[in-house]
């Protein structure tokens, strides 16, 4: 993974499934809460409507009785009033004459009121209806007790609440299940198509079946993009491979001709030096081509990866080979080989090239009498090889580019063609080794190789 990808994808964000679950839970809770708030009002409205209808019907009946049979049958009291109530004082009927016409109530009203029966005040729903009989104004009051209604209200409320929760929970599970089924293709796309692959050649182009238009489109477009990418890669690699091949033959001819000319004994010293310079220049050109070819071959998966070697073994081998170089600059190489690791499967020659380049860099950019520390150890169950030098180091802003081809840093005085680290990077990637670098100018550089994807 490149530097920018790392920066871009560092922040962890929740998955769409998590978001759906949270959204579901929140919306369902909101429904339950608003239901709980509205339920008493609804129950009250329904119950009162019911009572009111009953009260009105009774009023009509009583008024009909009065019209038919006269009021005298009902009003027995001296003051022409009448009161009657049930034993439990739950219901009552009362008729009073209205003595003062100004106090006459409006045509009809229904409200809750405390009514005094036998000196005991009780909450009632009361209908008040004025009527005229025999030129006398009367007021008819019919009441019904509402204490039982409160009880009814809480019963209904409890019952509906339980129902509601059951329904909500069931629908929550159904929703989540549905989302899971719905999102399954996306899940597959995530796992099969959006995992980091070393090259488009390793990409799985099998279509992921879905009955959702958007997912089909997404899958199709990803495949199309990867195909384009694969073709572009292929063209680039073939180009490099062909160019390298075509260039090696003419170089061979000139190189061999130079060798034959130089064997000629009649050459002056000056010509010999110039010919040997030309040979060096030609060799440099050939090396650049070889390096490009090597990178392109590795990226094209043309190298076998069937050997195994332990880290300490190959490091020791490389160190032995560069011993003279170390001595030349009087550099002390310190081996801190705490733990070993079997690199398998691997290509031994390529790994040798990688470590030679890394250690040679640590020598090349080091100071006289400097040191190199090579550490091998496990950190959090992941094997690491760390190569730390006391060299000239690099600026922080230069670090992201050091693995790019033909990038040479201005600070470097040593010669090279700028393909050493790209080769290292390519070989590391081929072996699924993650390589990072830390550096400080005038202090030194540290290359860290992580073997986390390499199977033990």
């Amino acid at each position: 993974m490149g530097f920018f990808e790392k920066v871009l994808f560092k922040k962890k964000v929740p998955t769409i499934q998590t978001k759906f679950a949270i959204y579901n839970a929140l919306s369902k809770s909101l429904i339950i809460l608003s239901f709980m708030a509205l339920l008493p009002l609804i129950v009250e409205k329904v119950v009162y409507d019911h009572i009111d209808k009953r009260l009105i019907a009774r009023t009509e009946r009583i008024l009909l009785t009065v019209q038919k049979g006269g009021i005298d049958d009902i009003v027995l009291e001296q003051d022409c009033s009448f009161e009657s109530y049930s034993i439990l004082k739950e219901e009552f009927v009362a008729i009073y004459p209205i003595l003062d016409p100004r106090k006459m109530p409006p045509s009809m009203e229904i409200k809750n009121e405390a009514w005094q029966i036998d000196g005991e005040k009780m909450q009632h729903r009361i209908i008040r209806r004025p009527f005229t009989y025999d030129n006398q104004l009367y007021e008819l009051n019919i009441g019904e007790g509402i204490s039982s209604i409160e009880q009814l209200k809480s019963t209904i409320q409890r019952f509906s609440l339980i129902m509601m929760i059951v329904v909500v929970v069931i629908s929550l599970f159904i929703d989540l299940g549905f989302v899971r089924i719905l999102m399954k293709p996306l899940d597959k796309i995530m796992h099969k198509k959006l995992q980091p692959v070393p090259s488009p050649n390793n990409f799985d182009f099998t279509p992921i079946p879905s009955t959702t238009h958007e997912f089909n489109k997404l899958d199709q477009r990803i495949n199309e993009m990867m195909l384009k990418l694969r073709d572009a890669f292929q063209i680039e690699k073939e180009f490099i491979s062909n160019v390298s091949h075509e260039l090696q033959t003419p170089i061979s001819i000139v190189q061999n001709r130079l060798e034959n000319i130089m064997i000629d004994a009649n050459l002056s010293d000056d010509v010999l030096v110039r010919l040997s310079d030309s040979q060096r220049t030609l060799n440099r050109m050939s090396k650049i081509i070889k390096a490009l070819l090597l990178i392109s071959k590795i990226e094209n998966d043309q190298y076998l990866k069937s050997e195994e070697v332990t880290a300490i073994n190959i490091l020791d081998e490389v160190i032995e080979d560069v011993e003279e170089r170390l001595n030349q600059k009087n550099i002390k190489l310190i081996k801190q080989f705490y733990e070993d690791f079997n690199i398998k499967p691997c290509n031994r020659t390529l790994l040798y090239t990688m470590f030679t380049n890394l250690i040679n860099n640590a020598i090349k950019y080091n100071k006289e009498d400097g040191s190199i520390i090579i550490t091998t150890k496990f950190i959090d169950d992941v094997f690491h090889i760390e190569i730390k030098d006391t060299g000239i180091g690099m600026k922080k802003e230069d670090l992201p580019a050091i693995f790019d081809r033909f990038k040479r840093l201005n600070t470097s005085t040593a010669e090279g063609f700028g393909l050493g680290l790209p080769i290292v990077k390519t070989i590391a990637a081929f072996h699924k080794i993650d390589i990072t670098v830390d550096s400080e100018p005038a202090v030194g550089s540290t290359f860290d190789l992580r073997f986390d994807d390499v199977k033990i």
Partner: protein
Amino acid sequence: MNVLIVEDERSLSHEMEIYLTRQNFNCDVAFNGKSGTDKVLTNSYDFVLLDLGLPDMDGLDLLKDARKKGSEAAFIVLTARGEVEDKIKGLDLGADDYIPKPFSLAELHSRMQAILRRKHGLKSNTMTVADFDIDISNRTVQCKGQTINLTKKEFDLFHYLSLHKNRVLTRTQLTEHIWGDVLEDDYESNYIDVHVKNLRKKLSAHAPIDWFETVRGVGYRINI
């Protein structure tokens, strides 16, 4: 020693011919696969230097065919198609060695000599340079019966220079021989000088080595 060069690049086969003729080889050339096959099957060669990218056929097919029909020549495969390197090694088609292009003629010559030693089991596997005896199979150097402790690279260097004695080997040729297998981001290193310095120190402790010459600005030569 008879050598057949199967190479379609005429300039290249010409240079190889010049060099090998100087080394007392009898050279024959073929510019395509068909004529190469004919020659291999008709004549008896000690070496076949085989280019893989032939115009009319794959060089590997020529090799397979020749082996099937009982050719006993030593095959050295020359190729610029680096991508088949692993395959050649893996397939074990009966090639005796493999040299990627571009190669140095001196390197080709030393590989041919190595094959000769291997194939014919030369009686004397030692070379003598002045007071020094080089045992090639055991990779040791002795002077008046005393073994000199050389590193791997110092031995390779001494052996290579001795093989091509009386001729200048340039730093480039020596570097390619010593470090050729490893692709490094370094074309101008003076590591060869360091190796030579150490080698000279070790040899001169036992006997004078004024024949070990430095050719200024070019390389080194064993002049005997």
